């Protein structure tokens, strides 16, 4: 690999990403602390997140090491293998907490639904990269089918969060690429019908309950509403300047549920206050803009579409997770990139950013 490639790396993106990652580790350190009588006891979440981060960096370098355009050739095989794995899940999967999502490979378990997000992203990028014309009905349906087929398999596991992510990433990419006006209008009209269909047919009772609770959390303060109320108390009690690092009573005294994973940002909000939250949101926006700049600078449509896919991958997670924690969204199990603890999520995040950096690195190549 040419060393000069590095000079084209999107350093701004890399800086944002590393800053977010270390903020996340620091926040996990605080969230892991639990006061037991005198002093603090720490769970090992932040240490494990550090190890996952190192693994993630290796994945990122691997994702940068080859020319991203090879992914175009791998798109279909990757997609088909993923579909095969998804079909295997109901037959050979493990049941955890009432849902069948995992395939055991003996030495480790994988979640094919996680792969499905990536497979759809890459294949959609390939399909949308064929030309720059706005999509008519035929093309639109073809691209949509790429998302709907794995979604149908994932939602039966059941895994509403991942299904939502697949469709939202795909939708973002399609919108970015552009669709014909009449297609867009029809879709906008059809959306409420689809939502109603989901509500009455596609959802489990507990999922409906979550949405109802989101609309009125005071209704059930000890049950489903507890998460929302406690997280709002945590964030709100941070006030302007926060309670200080490691001083959050809501998290230290374990009133805040899921404070390592989905509600990690509430710990941050409690300890760093409004000032810290604005800084974090700004950082996330800079991070997204860095990805965006790579998308517009990319040399070819495929690279650009790939990066747009990654943009939406992060955008929706940030939007949904933070929205949920501060009570703008119903509780959906979607983690916040870099801030929430999660091994495989960290690996995927770093790998996807590796692909973005790959595209940014190679933006001057093969220009004929």
């Amino acid at each position, binding site marked *: 690999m040419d060393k000069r490639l590095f000079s084209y790396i999107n350093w701004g993106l890399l800086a944002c990403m590393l800053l977010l990652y270390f903020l996340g580790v620091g926040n996990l350190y605080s969230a892991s602390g639990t*006061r037991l009588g005198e002093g603090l006891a720490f769970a090992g979440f932040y240490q494990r997140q550090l190890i996952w981060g190192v693994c993630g960096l290796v994945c990122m370098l691997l994702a940068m090491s080859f020319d991203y355009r090879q992914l175009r050739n791998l798109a279909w095989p990757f997609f088909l293998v993923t579909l095969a794995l998804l079909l295997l899940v109901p037959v050979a999967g493990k049941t955890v907490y009432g849902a069948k999502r995992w395939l055991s490979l003996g030495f480790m378990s994988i979640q094919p639904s996680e792969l499905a997000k990536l497979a759809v992203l890459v294949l959609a990028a390939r399909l949308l990269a064929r030309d720059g014309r706005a999509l008519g009905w035929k093309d639109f349906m073809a691209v949509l089918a790429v998302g709907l087929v794995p979604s149908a398999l994932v939602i039966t596991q059941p895994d509403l969060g991942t299904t939502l992510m697949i469709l939202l990433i795909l939708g973002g990419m399609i919108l*970015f690429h552009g669709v014909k006006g009449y297609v867009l209008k029809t879709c906008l009209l059809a959306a409420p019908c689809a939502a109603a269909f989901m509500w009455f047919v596609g959802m489990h009772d507990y999922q409906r309950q979550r949405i109802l609770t989101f609309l009125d959390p005071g209704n059930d303060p000890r049950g489903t509403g507890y998460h929302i109320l406690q997280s709002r108390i945590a964030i*709100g009690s941070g006030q302007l300047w926060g309670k200080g690092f490691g001083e959050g009573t809501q998290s230290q005294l374990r009133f805040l549920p899921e404070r390592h994973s989905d509600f990690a940002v509430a710990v941050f909000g409690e300890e760093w206050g409004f000032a810290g939250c604005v800084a974090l949101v700004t950082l996330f926006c800079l991070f997204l803009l860095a990805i965006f700049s790579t998308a517009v600078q990319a040399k070819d449509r495929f690279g650009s579409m790939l990066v747009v896919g990654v943009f939406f991958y992060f955008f929706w997670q940030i939007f949904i997770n*933070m929205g949920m924690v501060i009570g703008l969204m119903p509780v959906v199990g979607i983690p916040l990139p870099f801030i929430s603890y999660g091994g495989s999520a960290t690996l995927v995040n770093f790998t996807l950013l590796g692909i973005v950096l790959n595209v940014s690195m190679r933006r001057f190549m093969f220009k004929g």
Partner: protein
Amino acid sequence: MMKRSKRLSAPETPDAQAHKKEGDRSWLKIQMDSEGYQPPRGGVILLQVLVGLLFFVFVVRFWYLQVHRGEEFARQAQENRLRLERIFAPRGRILDDRDKVLADNRTAYGLSLTREDCHDIPATLAQISLWSGIPLPQIWEKYHQDRFKVKSFEPLLLITDIDFDLVARIESEIYAWPGLEIVVRTKRSYPEKELFAHVLGYVAEANEQEMSNDPALAMGDLVGKQGLELELEKQLRGHKGLYDVEVDAHARVLGKTLREEPRGGHEMRLSLDRGLQQAAWDALGGAAGCVVVMEPDSGKLRALVTSPAYDNNLFAAGISQRDWDALRTSKRFPLQNRVIQSVYPPGSVWKLVMAALFLERGISPRESVFCSGQVKLGNQIFRCWKRGGHGSMNMESSLINSCDVYFYLLAERLGIDKLEEFAKASGFGKPTGIDLPHEKSGLVPSRQWKKRRFGRPWVRGETYNVSIGQGYTLVTPVQVAVYVAAMLNGGDLLKPQLLDDAPRVVQSRIPAKPETFRFVVDAMRKTAGVGTARVVGRKDADMGGKTGTAQVVKLKMAAGDRRLRSSEMEYAQRDHAWIATWGAKNGKSYVVVVMVEHGGGGSSVAGPVAKKVYDYLFGPDTGAPPPAAPPAARRQTGEERAN
């Protein structure tokens, strides 16, 4: 825009040329865009708008939560963290007049379960059953009953009163059972058991209704349910202390600071005498009945015995269903406090009320009536208890001999309305106001009452029955004691007091002249000397009494039939035996009323009980004449009888 123009100029740079070469060398055939790629304009705008929207929405929302409503949430976080914990205050003890402890506190150990900390509730409950020997279904039942009364992170008391050896054993094994905890509670104990059960009542855990009525009560608190424990709840309970407790979300305690000291309840001393109570209890000898001993001048009660009774410790420890059913369904009604909660026809004791009425209505005590043994009213025959009749009777001799005919005829002359009015003014037909729950009123019948109750008018024969304390008339033993005390103290109907320091409370006065009271007292003295109440008479004290034998069932007797003896009747049909007495010695005077349910004759059954009570009060009869009779009695014997 800047960036894009830079990109467009890029192909001319040498770097780009180098990259192109490298690309050609690539081992994989790569498809290239033939023309320069331009990102879709709409898409570029969309992404920028989305990022802007994200920033705007979240910053505004964070501002709203953290700055606009920040203080409110900060307060809620504080409330989450700090909890108030109550410190139990010891309940006041109850003592008798010589400081003998009647109700005490003892330490009891219990086992509680915190659901949230318990990983395997069925296994844990099974282990509790193994330790305690309590059958598993019973523990499950208790668990299901109380599960939702406490929050999942609060301890749920499952068993109480574990003995100390078992506590030691559980303590050594409890580490293996998360969620279980040994709790220390104070329990009430009643060393005198049955003897004071009806007076003291008992405490038990507060129920939901009591908790909702009284915010100071919490789950597991003891509260008085019966007797003085109920009546004196406010004084006995004391005031809980408070800790500020810092807790985490699992209610684990991180630190405590004392906010308010607990204050123990007041110790209450009763006017009752444990020894006298025991003597009266023994005198009853297990018969169903009751004894009231009262000081006529102060209204203080010295003994209040009802038999049979129950062991109130059973309730304080949490009574089992089997024990409860046994008490509830017993034919001898051990849960009934016969002194205040049972009503009986007073029988001849009632003649004390009638005699006072006659005097107040201007009937001369010297007017005499001939008793032939019966009176005819229409085709009804009203008998005197003495078959052959008493002959000529005046007021005094009719009381001494308890002649029924005298009272039939004079009551008939006054009519039921006057009887009713005076009886009610004498404290009958309404509670005496004693500080014990569920006191009965008894019944003084009247024309209106009969109309209301039976829809029929009053008939004259019923006045006959009322005059000798039969028919509809019903009284409680304590009402009789209060009446007799009023005779001695000059007409004050006193509230019967149970506390040593209780004041003298006059509920009302009997509307009668002092001479009337003196006459009744003197007649009682003579009855105890030579009349039907001879059994209580003694030489070393000034004594008075009146017996009563109250018919339970109206036995239809044709003329010539003899009255059946008690022993020949079914228990439930036997007469109630009454005796109402007073005694004075060494300046101390007492009223003693004894009632033996279905005991038979007043003088033969109730009398000996009263005698034993006086033997305890005055010691065995020395035979020596009383050193000084009480002033009221002395005056009566002197001047009044000469009139």
